[in-house]
């Protein structure tokens, strides 16, 4: 059996039985990444020497019977807004030119302690603002399935790396869908965990009340395994909470008969492509055949999700990104005085999309307009969250598309304020706004590009989500084989 295109679980088993070594696996993925990256552009930093050294150390530990964990020696990638000590951190932006992280993010430490091998940092939309990984200062990441299409965003590099078998799994960040949507576009599995389940210490903030570290894998089982290592209480993140569960694989393979899944009637009324509707219907049928009860519930608050998300995320971004001025780190501009220096650094350092959101965020927070914009958005967020909690009292999870369509052509939505974001954010934003976990898995019909099906659950219900998602995944794979 070839070393290529295996799941994390299969690789871990192979390392355990010494079918091949971590060094062989790492070399295989690294060489593939080095060969393909000039075109695919999934990575912005590849760390060959470090990766090979970590792989050799892993093999040595294993030979002595001292493997650190089940995933000791598994190679992975990290989105370039997550801090890795000694490696550049760019957030896809010129303004952080030359910046090298002085510490590891807590989630990176967790995987380092588990013995995983870091391959490199992946490309992203600038400061996580975007849906295509087109706004990065390093150029766009292509979709590995069809290079004409975007890889999705903002964690497009991470999704592309996993889809192209250049990493066994990858970390991303999800504020309003930035893990789920690129995972869908690239045909991978993307998990946005419960807000506070994974430490954000070392994740560069975009909108801290919405940001989470997310996980991209090739299959649901792998997602459950990786999440088990990532979810951990961290005193360095004041919002981090202890997850009540430890083993997220324990419900995999269990029956889901008797569970209740909600379909929100308003999402079915959106403009969705035929592929997405087909995927939604197929999902409903699979779950019904498994004995799941499908209930249709109305959630009118969901139609405000985009307005709420855009307002709050822009407001928080406007505040968060005020720290980037080239004075203490990053790209410093020259000028006659402090004002000139700050203006030049930020104007030359930030891209168009970032500027747009900073400006709107400042507007939303302004004295004249904060009542109409920001405070209204806060109230609407509370209402939506309460409404979602209400739905999740009547159902174990909510089924909805990840995106209104498959990936779009590169350049097609470069500046389309409402086309690009309205539909996609409307489907991903609710989970973000309410702090709920959500997983996206791919559905492929014929030769078309994959679309994403999303399951959203109660807080800290990742195990149940994995169980449901695996059922769908197996059925989709069966259908694709026929």
């Amino acid at each position, binding site marked *: 059996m070839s070393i290529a295109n295996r799941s994390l679980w299969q690789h871990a088993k192979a390392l355990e039985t010494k079918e091949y070594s971590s060094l062989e696996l790492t070399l295989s993925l690294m060489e593939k990444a080095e060969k393909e990256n000039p075109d695919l552009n999934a990575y912005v930093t590849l760390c060959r020497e470090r990766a090979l050294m970590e792989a050799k150390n892993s093999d040595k530990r294993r030979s002595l019977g001292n493997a650190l964990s089940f995933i000791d020696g598994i190679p992975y990638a990290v989105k370039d807004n997550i801090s890795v000590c000694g490696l550049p951190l760019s957030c896809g932006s010129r303004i952080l030119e*030359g*910046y*090298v992280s*002085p*510490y590891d993010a807590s989630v990176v430490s967790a995987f380092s302690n588990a013995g995983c091998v870091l391959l490199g940092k992946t490309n992203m939309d600038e400061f996580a603002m975007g849906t295509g990984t087109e706004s990065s200062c390093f150029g766009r990441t292509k979709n590995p399935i069809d290079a004409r299409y975007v890889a999705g965003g903002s964690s497009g590099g991470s999704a592309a790396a996993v889809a192209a078998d250049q990493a066994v799994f990858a970390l991303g960040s999800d504020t309003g869908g930035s893990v789920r949507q690129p995972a869908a576009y690239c045909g991978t599995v993307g998990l946005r965990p419960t*807000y*506070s389940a994974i430490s954000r210490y070392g994740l560069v903030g975009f909108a801290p*009340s*919405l940001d989470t570290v997310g996980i991209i894998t090739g299959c649901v089982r792998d997602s459950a395994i990786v999440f088990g290592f990532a979810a951990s209480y961290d*005193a360095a993140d*004041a*919002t*981090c*909470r202890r997850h009540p569960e430890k083993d997220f694989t324990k419900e995999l393979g269990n029956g889901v008969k008797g569970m209740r899944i909600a379909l929100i009637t308003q999402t079915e009324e959106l403009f969705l492509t035929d592929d997405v509707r087909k995927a939604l219907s197929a999902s409903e049928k699979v779950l019904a055949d498994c004995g799941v009860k499908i209930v249709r519930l109305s959630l009118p608050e969901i*139609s*405000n999700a*985009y*307005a709420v998300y*855009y307002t709050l995320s822009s407001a928080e971004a406007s505040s968060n990104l*005020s720290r980037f*001025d*080239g*004075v*203490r*780190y990053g790209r*410093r501009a020259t000028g006659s005085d*402090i004002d000139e220096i*700050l*203006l*030049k650094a*930020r*104007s030359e350092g930030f891209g*168009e999309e970032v*500027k*747009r959101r*900073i*400006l*709107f965020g*400042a*507007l939303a927070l*302004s004295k004249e*307009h904060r*009542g*109409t*914009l920001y*405070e*209204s*958005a*806060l*109230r*609407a*967020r*509370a*209402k939506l*969250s309460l409404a979602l909690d209400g739905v999740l009292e009547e159902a174990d999870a909510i089924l909805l598309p990840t995106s209104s369509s498959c990936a779009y052509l590169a350049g097609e939505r470069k500046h389309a*304020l*409402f086309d690009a974001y309205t539909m996609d954010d409307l489907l991903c934003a609710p989970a973000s*706004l309410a*702090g709920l976990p959500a997983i996206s898995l791919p559905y492929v019909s014929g030769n078309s590009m994959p679309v994403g099906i999303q399951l959203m659950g109660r*807080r800290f219900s990742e195990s149940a989500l994995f169980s449901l998602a695996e059922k769908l995944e197996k059925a989709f794979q069966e259908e694709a084989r026929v």
Partner: protein
Amino acid sequence: MNEESIKKFTAADFDADALAEQVRLRLSDVEKQSFLDDMCDMANYVSERLFESRDGSLVIGFSAAKNASELREDEPKLFERAEEILANAPHVKDGYIAVPQIMDNGEN
């Protein structure tokens, strides 16, 4: 919803120069117009969508983390990693980050 009472934004409602100065951005004339149009569109969209949420009696407080965070104890620790911070500074002088002058020594 009384459509007449929904705030309708126009370009006149926004002082793009003041906003840009506040967030320390210098915009070209083309950028200014483009961003102004976008802000107008978005503000009107949000204003219309969230009209019902302007009700001040509605709850404004929300925590995605649902409270119950565990806060660590305050333990004073000596910070000994200044060199790592300085390594990223564009300009270092005598062990400090050299920053552009802000005060004008009282001349103005």
